[in-house]
């Protein structure tokens, strides 16, 4: 049986790669890609806990999977809105570089 910690470590690496992408990229779409990676890492954790950790109540023994489903849905909604914003910014400012979108900074 693969220990739970293996999954957690893989998820941690994935999360940190996503974090790096979200912090270090200039292109807004690339930042969103980093965020999606982080959400994926969270989902691995949820499903791993579902499998290995005792449920709080017998009726809730599917909670981990159902939460993962809701996270996927949220990720899709977030991507839809985020990318729509990026497209709108691109149309009005001709750039998707987050460093150049600084109109609200001052």
């Amino acid at each position: 049986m693969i220990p739970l910690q293996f999954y957690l470590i893989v998820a941690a690496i994935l999360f940190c790669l996503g974090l790096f992408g979200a912090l270090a990229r200039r292109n807004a779409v690339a930042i969103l890609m980093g965020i999606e990676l982080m959400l994926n890492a969270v989902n691995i954790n949820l499903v791993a806990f579902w499998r290995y950790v005792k449920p709080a109540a017998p009726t809730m023994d599917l909670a981990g999977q159902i939460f993962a489903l809701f996270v996927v849905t949220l990720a899709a909604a977030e991507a839809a809105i985020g990318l729509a914003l990026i497209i709108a910014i691109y149309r009005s400012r001709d750039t998707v570089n987050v460093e150049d979108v600084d109109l609200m900074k001052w």
Partner: protein
Amino acid sequence: MLDRYGIVAIFALLAVIFPAIPLLLSLVIRPKKPNQSKKATYECGLEFEDFPEEAQNVWVQFRVQYYLFALIFVVFDIEVVYLYPWAVAYNTLGPFALVEMIVFLGILILALAYAWRNGLLEWT
């Protein structure tokens, strides 16, 4: 898990090997005589190299319509994902399940109706 998905893993392996075999085989037997105009990007009746520099960039500005269709697609794709387990369990659930699903579908039909009324389902 392995007993059921072992064969899937083997098919996944085959999915990579199977296209690789003819590609490698044809690598051995096909001719290889490239020249400038063969390797040029295809254009109707024109030499691609004759184009001015800015026209050689093949990127085209796509219409936002593509994105809007993808949006509606994503919403419905997620809806389908929730419909499937409901459909499997339907026989064991009472009439309440049907009502709940009609509410769920109804909200999404609202979304479709919104897109329809705003003319987003038209490809203009």
